[in-house]
């Protein structure tokens, strides 16, 4: 089975340093880059599927600045076979619509059964790219997956899609695009052997010219969305920690809610 996982380097949300630059774009220098959390869940799901099927390969695909390979190494250390890095200075500021078009162009020449992506990324939080990639490629989209069950003999894949009341069971022919939730399972830590092996794994670079994309159709200048304003969420108020027996805790919570006329 050949699986492509879409992977995006994002500023580490745990660093607390994420911020926007004066141009309203993400200031990538503000925090160290890490693999987007949901992408790691998608990769973990891909690695598990690959391990269950002899001869499988997992390819990472990333559209990202030139420094991305440093971040992609961690994903390779988790066990991916190789990486493809689409990078071009012109791509800075590209909106979700154009990003999907670029990723679709990079996917077109590849042979794959599944494309896995995280449901969204912690920097932009748009969550539209997986669906747009599927639309560009004319492939089925199975979204919000909490379980993925491919049937290679039948050439189909079943996905449990998280719904408000439980889950929907979806089935589609492969190849297909799947957006992945954290319900698929915790990503593994790279093993030391994985880290060593990742150093010699291939990360191929693709430019816009390689993909046959006109540079004037991408980038910040032609972005379909513009950031108008941004605000930092208000700081959380003081936290009250209640220590004591469950009964005392419950009594304090009731009192707290009652004081605020919530109950």
């Amino acid at each position, binding site marked *: 089975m050949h699986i492509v996982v879409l992977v995006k380097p994002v500023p580490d949300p745990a660093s607390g340093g994420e911020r926007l630059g004066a141009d309203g774009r993400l200031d990538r220098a503000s925090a160290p880059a890490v693999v987007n959390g949901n992408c790691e869940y998608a990769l973990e799901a891909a690695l598990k599927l690959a391990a269950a099927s002899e001869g499988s390969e997992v390819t990472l695909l990333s559209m990202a600045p030139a420094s991305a390979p440093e971040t992609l190494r961690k994903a390779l250390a988790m066990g991916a076979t190789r990486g493809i890095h689409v990078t071009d200075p012109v791509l800075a500021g590209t909106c979700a619509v154009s990003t999907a078009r670029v990723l679709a162009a990079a996917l077109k020449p590849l042979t794959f059964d599944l494309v896995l992506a995280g449901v969204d990324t912690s920097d932009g939080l748009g969550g539209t790219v997986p669906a747009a990639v599927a639309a560009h490629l004319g492939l089925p989209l199975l979204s919000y997956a909490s379980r993925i069950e491919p049937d290679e003999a039948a050439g189909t894949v079943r996905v449990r899609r998280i719904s408000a009341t439980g889950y929907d069971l979806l089935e589609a022919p492969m190849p297909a695009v799947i957006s992945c939730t954290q319900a698929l399972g915790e990503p593994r830590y790279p093993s*030391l*052997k994985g880290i060593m092996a990742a150093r010699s794994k291939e990360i191929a670079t693709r430019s816009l010219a390689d993909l046959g994309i006109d540079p004037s159709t991408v980038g910040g200048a032609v972005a379909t969305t513009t950031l108008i304003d941004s605000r930092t969420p208000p700081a959380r108020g003081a936290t009250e920690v209640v220590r004591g027996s469950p009964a005392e805790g419950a009594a304090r919570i009731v009192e707290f809610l009652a004081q605020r006329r919530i109950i």
Partner: protein
Amino acid sequence: MVLASPASARPMLRSAAVISSSQAHGPYQLSEEQRLLRDAVRELADERVAPRAADIDRTGEFPEDLRRLLATQDILALPFPEEHGGLGGELLSVCLAVEQLSRACATTGLILAAHELGALPLLLAGTPEQRARWFPRLASGEWLIAFALTEAEAGSDVAAARTRAVRDGDQYVISGSKRFITHGSVADLVTVFAVTDPEAPRHGRLSCFVVEVPTEGFSVPRVEHKMGIRGSPTAELAFDNVCVPVANRVGDEGDGFGIAMRTFERSRPGIAAQAVGIAQGALEVASRYATERRQFGQRIGDFQMVAAMLADMDASTEAARQLLYKACVEIDSGAPDAGRWSAMCKLVAGDAAMRVTTDAVQVLGGYGYIDDFPVERMMRDAKITQIYEGTQQIQRLVIARALLGKDRAPLG
């Protein structure tokens, strides 16, 4: 000015050069591989080990889950050669991993350090057959190996060991008991040192054997109740006519003492790494506390007396770390004074860990003395680094012997 020293000063300078870093192999820095490895272990330690540390200390139970985690992540594979499933890691790589684990939990850092210690006799003197037989399962972490040298009456005085191994055809029969054996009750292999020739000169009496356990005649009469590293089982091992094939002897008969000493040359940095990790962990807790705790209307870190303590703790920890890293490089590149480097780094790091953790408790005051914060545990854990794998007094003896020559050293 030193270069222009009068001729009369030269002999002194020259003799000093012989025992100083004249053999030093130049500057060192961590390779990219080592930095990646250190960062990976640090992340694992922060996310998976640190949350378990207080519980491990409180229950005194060996963290089987973390031992499995270290195995899965190939951390236990670090000291073993690649051809047997290991990572062929340099001494510095092993120490980086021990340091990062110990920063979160000294018991967990010791899992790797003690595993390496137990395997060192085989790494140093094992035959290709012995290595092929045992290394794959040790590298995968399926098996743990312990090092059994110390006896109730033979601690610092290693050569005073009384456990006997008597040749009987194609096997040896081992009788006696070992005390204070790290992982003694959880190991699958034990490297045991026993007297094969009581009549031989003092340093030629011991031989080294690998005992696969459980086996008939082997028992664990006691697991110690300890001040620190409480999750690491320290056991008494009893050998009641335990039969071991001749093929399990490591090195020749009478090589035991030499193998043990060469083992310590490489294992003491592991304890120094544990000590540096404990010190770093305590420093981080104390520093954070000093920025959060307010008294007299200001952060306690803004009081010069507290700030100075933190500065000293940082400097001590970093000095110990740099000596450790340098010692690892010297030992790995075959320095003739490896024993001296090994003793120096453990001496400096063990004392730094004790001082830094004691001061960390002081910075936290009453909160440092109770188990709501980890520094009291770290202080208890630090103490052992001044005791095991040679007390600080033995380290000074080793260093002094290198300095003065064996004949002129104390307690020759």
